[in-house]
């Protein structure tokens, strides 16, 4: 993986960001050493009742959901014919590729014997496992994303021929990407369908895979908007006219789409509630928290998006995007940690340790640094002059 090498070339500029990043990287390396010498027990709060912590709940669940921007953007551009989103595709693909790479990287910390990660695919296939499905799709999708990303790399390296071959495969790759994303995004939710006795009824549903898939679409689009906002300032000098010209249109379009999909998500969650007749749980403590999630992080951003789109108010849309991203994190946390093992007494519940938080920050930091490294060198926010207008 290219991520290890990526940490090295840091600029010696003592900006606050670089300082914090350095501290996190050093702390992360320390915890890494502890993890691979003392075992998971040495750095995590995981125990026999709580086998999955934030390395799964955040790094895997949220990482995958938030990397959904890759397939939503490429599908919008290449399949639905929304060509004006073209400028947004490359940043989205890069983010998604890095996101998935880091998910796999983080899994290396979480699973007991990381070098065996290919085992389920190449040694012994547990086909009845939803995790097998997730693993297979993530592996394939990572490959697809890498190939989708390679044009940028080849342009940078000046390898025209092979670049053109890859570009010709765009449609097939995009469709494959959407198929794989649909499968593993939904399967991540379906992972929990095996444990109805452990997940609180308000969050458990036979519809979990659908919930996860639909919410990943919202997450992907919101993440594209959110991340575009974040990278706008530091990367502005790299962005070409086309990117900048179309960026506002992209935000408006995705904002409108996200609002509608969020509405649909809210609707199917409501149906899920009725399907299992879980109304009476709403008056409990968990019910209140469920309502916070549903109203504060689904209904509210949906409405905010709508207001923002109607008024063409990009600020509101950006806030809605941030809220949606936060909402997806809340949802994934709820399912993998807060509402999971709800039956256990408080003393036996899980709360992440500093070691776990450090590694999660470490992984995110690596992601940001690699993104910066690549986007400052390769044609991500701008079109390579040789291929201008040829997209």
């Amino acid at each position: 993986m290219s991520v290890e090498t990526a940490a090295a070339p840091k600029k010696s500029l003592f900006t606050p960001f670089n300082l914090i990043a350095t501290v996190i990287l050093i702390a992360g390396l320390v915890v890494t050493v502890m993890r691979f010498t003392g075992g998971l027990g040495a750095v995590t709060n995981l125990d026999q009742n709580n086998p999955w912590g934030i390395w799964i709940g955040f790094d895997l669940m949220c990482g995958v959901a938030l990397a959904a921007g890759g397939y939503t953007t490429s599908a919008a551009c290449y399949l639905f014919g929304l060509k004006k989103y073209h400028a947004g595709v490359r940043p989205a693909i890069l983010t998604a590729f890095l996101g998935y790479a880091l998910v796999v990287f983080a899994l290396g910390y979480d699973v007991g014997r990381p070098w065996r990660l290919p085992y389920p695919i190449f040694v012994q296939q547990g086909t009845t496992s939803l995790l097998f499905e997730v693993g297979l799709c993530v592996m394939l999708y990572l490959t697809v994303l890498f190939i989708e990303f390679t044009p940028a790399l080849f342009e940078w390296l000046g390898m025209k021929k092979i670049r053109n071959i890859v570009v010709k495969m765009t449609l097939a790759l995009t469709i494959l990407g959407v198929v794989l994303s649909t499968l593993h995004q939904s399967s991540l939710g379906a992972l929990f369908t095996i444990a109805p006795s452990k997940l609180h009824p308000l969050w458990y549903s036979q519809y979990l895979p659908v919930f996860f898939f639909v919410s990943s679409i919202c997450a992907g689009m919101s993440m594209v908007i959110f991340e575009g906002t974040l990278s706008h300032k530091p990367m502005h000098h790299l962005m070409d006219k086309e990117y900048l010209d179309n960026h506002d249109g992209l935000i408006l379009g995705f904002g409108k789409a996200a609002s509608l999909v969020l509405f649909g998500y809210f609707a199917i969650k409501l149906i899920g509630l009725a399907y299992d007749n879980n109304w009476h749980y709403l008056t409990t403590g968990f019910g209140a928290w469920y309502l916070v999630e549903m109203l504060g992080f689904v209904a509210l951003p949906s409405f905010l998006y709508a207001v923002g789109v109607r008024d063409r108010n990009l600020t509101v849309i950006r806030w809605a995007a941030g809220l949606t991203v936060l909402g997806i994190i809340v949802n994934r946390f709820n399912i993998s940690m807060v509402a999971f093992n709800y039956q256990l007494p408080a003393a036996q519940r899980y709360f992440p340790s500093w070691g776990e938080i450090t590694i999660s920050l470490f992984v995110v930091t690596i992601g940001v640094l690699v993104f910066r490294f690549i986007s400052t060198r390769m044609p991500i926010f701008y079109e390579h002059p040789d291929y201008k207008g040829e997209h």
Partner: protein
Amino acid sequence: MLRRTFLGLLGAAGASAALVKPTQAGNKHFGPHPDTHGVLFDATRCIGCRQCELACNEVNELPAPDKPFDDLTVLDTERRTDEKTFTVVNKYQTAKGPVFRKTQCNHCLEPACASACFVRAFKKQPNGAVTYDASVCVGCRYCMVACPFSIPAYEYDEPLTPRVRKCTMCYPRLMEGKLPGCVEKCPKEALTFGLRTDLIQIARERISRYPEKYVDHIYGEHEMGGTSWMYLSGVPFSEIGMREDLGTASAPELTAGPLAAVPMVVGLWPVLLGGIYAVSKRNAKVANDERVKAVKSALTKAGEEAEKKLHEELGKAEQASQRRIEVEVKKAVEEALAPKEEDAGTNEEES
């Protein structure tokens, strides 16, 4: 117009995924293997001596515990199985006085751990034992998430070679024709070993012979699709720390729905997405043709000068950017009393 299509189709995608109902294997039934053995635990017989724990520890060569097995004060706190203990006895205060209950892997007929494992490390053996193969285990701990009885334990302190640990029903001993260690050691025959079908008969007989002594329920006969290890008790099972809300659906049944949806997505998504692509491309082409036509007619009306320019531009379009054409075309169109065309993509991608 196109954006609306996009959103509509996203909605359709969600709906069709929801249509896939959880299915079982048709009306097929897979009874347990006729050789499925099991153990019947009778809580009215257990005296809480921890001899089973001792036997288990010896048979499986597990590390010595902090407190010796004859120290019964250990029973005062509720414990669970862990990587060094495959079975524990817990004490529960009930209306009928203290009642003891042994916990270990229940060796489900349809094990959730086996269903969840993505390397098939767990296997339901024909003799009833659910065994684990550490040589393929990746250490993802999904089995621990999946197990409704919270049995599998993980060696969190092993940095590089952690295993999942649980009771094996003494599979190696069974193969030698011996009893499981705990069963052999129990002084009260609180544990009865035998064919699962026989055990159910025995349990029914005990309940009918001593109706006031037992709760009329065999825990494990149907729980989570049935288990090889079953329980009898004189007090409600919830009072001795056993969940009565697990339901009777087995783990493979619970995940059958989502798993069934997977191949449908693979089969239909390329068709659906390819269709969308074709339609959007066609729309773009039609729009483009119309525009070109409109431009043409506008231009015929306009003078020679404009026509000349247009030809020039159309010629260029074969080699270079469409966008530039568009701009130029627009310019030309504006010059020549423009029609009211919306922007539309142009086709440049070859599949």
